[in-house]
């Protein structure tokens, strides 16, 4: 017990020493040390830096464009052609969870450079794989190497944005995370046009991968060059930033708090509920109105999916900015409580009114996006800015879990209902009830979130100095 307390004290002292340094000097010095903003630097240069990374890595959600040509060119099954994307998402979760502390230590420029190199190299390796018709090289390149770029890139600007916008952290992170949603909107038509021009054979796919890798490297370079950390150097006019105030908790301490795990449940439940719609949006709207006088065509269903993407993206910036005004806990009450209500409305009246079905689905998807975008600011409120990027990285394991859970629930239940001879809206009734239940669980977890106990805080500077003095005296 005494040893444990001593280790804990040593950890707290180390954390405090790091905290006492200015944001600039808190990072490792060297070639990739983060550039400190010079006097007069505008904080409005930081969101485009973040967007250049997020708009690029958001391409991951447009992977499906490459699936049919890969299947015909390399003779792959649907499962095989999905593997690069699936491995990429797994690597996103893992690298965000395990690389978060490195990102905090080395700063946003280092992180964005790693993201650029990995994400672009992933495409270049895939280009080589397609040219040589080596499927495993595409899996390794896009999935493994590119996936590391996804995870490090996703968390790279979060901490810096929160430090630049302490008055509007929700809006700032909302802009960046909206970019992740926007990335697929850009890549989907762009990649499709490219494949149309270059051809769907292996050399055409290789050329498309090559152009993607080079273009994204140039596009992401803006983020690497523009990102700056705010200076706390005394006298640095216009950019002076005092040491962080309020409770500060390290990433290692944060995962020992109930607040972290409550938020983990909140995010997991909210994402699962969103994926529940997103995963089967097109067949769902078709099934719901199949037996009505106004059935939904395949083209209209594609339009519905596009509209959901827009709601997902808009929710990221709109709801996250709203959280700056009404508070983080309240906005999650809306996401989870009103989300459950929307699911109930679809389950009860969805098949009788198309506008009602579409409206409820759009609101659910806007809450899905909002949940992603608001969580960094919620973490900042609870754990401070000290290692918020690393804590965010660890929380993203909830996303990976939900990514498996959501589609599994909806697809498994729909398949069982179909086997039981059901059709139309009744295929999804049970799924919706489960989604409502999950959202209620998330709502309860959000209600259990309380301020973090002071024993997890890094000691305030004065207190830390006292502890250090005591340690040196006893030594």
């Amino acid at each position, binding site marked *: 017990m005494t040893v444990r307390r001593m280790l804990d004290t040593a950890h707290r002292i180390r954390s405090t020493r790091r905290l006492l340094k200015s944001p600039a000097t808190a990072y490792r010095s060297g070639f990739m040390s983060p550039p400190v*903003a010079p*006097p*007069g*630097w*505008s*904080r*409005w*240069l930081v969101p*485009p*830096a973040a*967007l*250049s990374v997020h*708009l690029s890595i958001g391409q991951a959600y447009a992977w499906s464009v490459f699936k049919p040509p890969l299947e015909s060119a390399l003779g792959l099954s649907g499962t095989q052609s999905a593997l690069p994307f699936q491995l990429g998402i797994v690597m996103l979760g893992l690298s965000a969870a395990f690389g978060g502390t490195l990102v905090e230590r080395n700063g946003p420029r280092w992180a964005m450079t790693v993201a650029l190199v990995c994400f672009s190299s992933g495409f270049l390796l895939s280009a080589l794989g397609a040219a040589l018709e080596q499927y495993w090289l595409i899996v390794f390149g896009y999935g493994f190497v590119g996936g590391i770029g996804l995870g490090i890139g996703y968390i790279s600007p979060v901490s810096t944005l929160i*430090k*630049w*916008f*302490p*008055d509007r952290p929700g809006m700032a992170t909302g802009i960046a995370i909206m*970019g992740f949603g*926007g990335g697929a*909107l*850009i890549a*989907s*038509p*762009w990649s499709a046009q490219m494949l149309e021009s270059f051809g769907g054979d292996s050399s055409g796919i290789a050329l498309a991968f090559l152009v993607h890798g080079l273009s994204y490297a140039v*596009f992401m370079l*803006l983020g690497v060059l*523009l990102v700056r950390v*705010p200076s706390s150097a005394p006298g640095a*006019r*216009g*950019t*002076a*930033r*005092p040491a962080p105030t309020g409770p500060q908790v390290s990433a290692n301490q944060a995962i020992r708090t109930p607040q972290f795990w409550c938020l983990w449940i909140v995010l997991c439940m909210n994402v699962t509920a969103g994926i529940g719609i997103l995963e089967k949006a097109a067949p769902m709207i078709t099934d719901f109105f199949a037996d009505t006088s106004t059935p939904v*065509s*395949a*083209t*209209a*269903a*594609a*339009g*519905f999916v*596009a*509209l959901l*993407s*827009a709601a997902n993206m808009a929710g990221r910036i709109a709801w996250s900015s709203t959280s700056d005004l009404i508070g983080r806990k309240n906005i999650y009450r809306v996401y989870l409580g009103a989300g459950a209500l929307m699911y109930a409305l679809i389950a009860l009246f969805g098949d009788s009114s198309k506008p009602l079905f*579409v409206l409820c689905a759009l609101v659910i998807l806007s809450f899905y996006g909002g949940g992603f975008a608001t969580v960094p600011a919620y973490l900042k409120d609870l754990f401070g800015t000290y290692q918020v990027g690393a804590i965010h990285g660890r929380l993203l394991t909830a996303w990976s879990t939900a990514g498996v859970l959501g589609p599994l629930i909806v697809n498994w239940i729909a398949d069982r209902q179909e086997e039981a001879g059901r059709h139309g809206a009744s295929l999804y009734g049970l799924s919706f009830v489960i989604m409502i239940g999950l959202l209620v669980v998330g709502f309860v977890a959000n209600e259990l979130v309380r301020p973090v106990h002071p024993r997890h805080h890094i000691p305030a500077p004065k207190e830390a100095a006292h502890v250090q003095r005591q340690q040196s005296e006893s030594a």
Partner: protein
Amino acid sequence: MSSDSSQSPPSPDRRWLIAFAWVWVGLPLAYGLYELVRKATQLFTG
């Protein structure tokens, strides 16, 4: 506070840099949104 940086107006050079940076990310996003709107209208016309 970092918000101080927004209170002291950026130099004219920086204003150009801000505009360039936002156009850099805004143009591809506008293209994506245009394609999205084109596809989304199919819900009402398709």
